[in-house]
């Protein structure tokens, strides 16, 4: 068997799509497939540990046994596509949705996974090396008549997330071992933001409708003039949260 065929067949065997006997493995005291099973276990456990690190809330809410089952399914169906694991774990919410019993017991669990993935993405995108045209300190120099043309830019790590469940409140209750966990109304929809502080540590916050819509406008790179005026009242709050990297003006205005 040449190396290309062997590695292809071995990869299939790791996914239970071929047996150890089909990979030219020596059978002795242990069968070829028993030996292959050690590698299957290592592969599944190592990537399951990555999922555990990314989804601690999901694991805490599901319990270890159920989490392990879903993680195994995810590892066998969602390949790692890079030689490092820092980006692994996307679409775990979809894996959860395939487990009817899990979704019936905790209908909000896939949303919790979406939330934890947003936290992970924020961390992945963290950077303060941005090249925005103007810093916020330059705002004072922009004439009032040009304000409508200002386009604010978010830090790359700002991730917006809405959910039909109260996932931000749930996180707060879990993190603070809050006694309110039992009285939490999880059925309440929430919207909010995940972002990093200057050191790269992630934080998250539920936002009121105006703040969220304003941020969403910035995410779409709308100018202030193109955003619903009622949302602009939240601008100071967004600036205080340090979510803005700076702003830009259309080229012809910037050169004036």
């Amino acid at each position, binding site marked *: 068997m040449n190396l290309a065929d062997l590695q292809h067949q071995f990869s299939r065997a790791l996914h239970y799509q071929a047996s150890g006997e089909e990979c030219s*493995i020596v059978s002795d005291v242990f069968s070829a497939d028993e030996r292959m099973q050690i590698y299957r276990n290592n592969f599944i456990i190592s990537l399951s540990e990555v999922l555990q690190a990314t989804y601690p809330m999901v694991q805490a809410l599901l319990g270890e046994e159920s989490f392990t089952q879903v993680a195994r399914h995810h590892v066998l169906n969602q390949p790692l596509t890079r030689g490092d694991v820092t980006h692994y774990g996307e679409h775990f919410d979809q894996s959860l949705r395939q487990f009817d019993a899990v979704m019936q017991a905790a209908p909000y669990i896939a949303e919790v996974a979406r939330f934890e993935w947003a936290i992970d993405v924020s961390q992945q995108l963290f950077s303060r*090396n941005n090249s925005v045209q103007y810093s916020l300190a330059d705002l004072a120099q922009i004439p009032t008549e040009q304000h409508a043309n200002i386009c604010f830019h978010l830090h790359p790590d700002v991730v917006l997330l809405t959910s039909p469940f109260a996932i931000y409140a749930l996180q707060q209750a879990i993190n603070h071992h809050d006694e309110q966990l039992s009285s939490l109304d999880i059925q309440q929809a929430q919207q909010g933001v995940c972002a990093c502080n200057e050191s790269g*540590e992630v934080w998250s916050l539920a936002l009121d409708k105006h703040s969220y819509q304003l941020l969403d406008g910035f995410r779409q790179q709308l100018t202030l003039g193109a955003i619903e005026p009622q949302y602009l009242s939240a601008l100071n709050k967004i600036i205080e949260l340090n979510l803005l990297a700076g702003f830009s003006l259309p080229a012809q205005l910037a050169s004036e």
Partner: protein
Amino acid sequence: MISTTQHPLIGIGLREPHLDFFLTEPAQLSWLEIHSENYFKPDSIARQQLRKIRQQYQISCHGIGLSLGSVERINRQHLQQLGSLVNEIEPMLVSDHLSWSENGGHYFNDLLPLPYTEEALDVFCRNVLEVQDALKRPMLIENPSSYLKFTHSTITEWDFLAEVQQRTQCRLLLDFNNIHVSAFNHGFTAHQYLQGIPADAVDEIHLAGFTVKQLDKGEIWIDTHSRPVSDEVWQLFQSWVAQHGARHTLIEWDLDIPEPDVLLSEAAKASAIVHSIERNVAREAS
């Protein structure tokens, strides 16, 4: 200031739970080894912390994701990220494994075994040379632990590794625990293995613990890096160092990671062995 009880050649694996410890405590060791892939992102918190740690320690970059044994070529993005890390951190050593971990664009986050054939040897050497060309430095190749053999292997692992070294002029990282584990699993002796390895090409040694897995038909030893170094591996280490001299030596612990004191205590054991051998050599020389 380096502790007088620790030998300057002894280091430990830097793992995430210990980043704060090594940032804040006075240095007791001269070097630490990182898993390169965990520090690829230039803006990450981990990379920022590594920059600070680098001010106090020498660093060795140990990779698990190059997939040097894959029939496909080295992933250019991975290599570029490694190169960027190496350029910034200026590690004293850069290493990866005699294994593969990628096929068809899918990675397995594990060190998978190679058939020891002429074809695999050509592929492995091609990939090592490509990495060395890109990094503009020799890399170290570590012997793996393994739990199976292929029917069509025609070369022993130690001969394969020695041939890789000769053809690519790479350096070697000898993991004594891996030799001990594989020797049990495949029925050879550690002595046989070490006889086949060119000692003068060895620049680093790894020491770690293993776990015995009891199956219905017998035992398999698994390289879990979750326990203290076994007595037998300490003996192998002592005997090899007495014969060939000390090398940079690492205490590795990756699962059920204990408090830093436990690792430092294992490092002190390694240090004591090296100090003792060096004292004997000095005594004999005088």
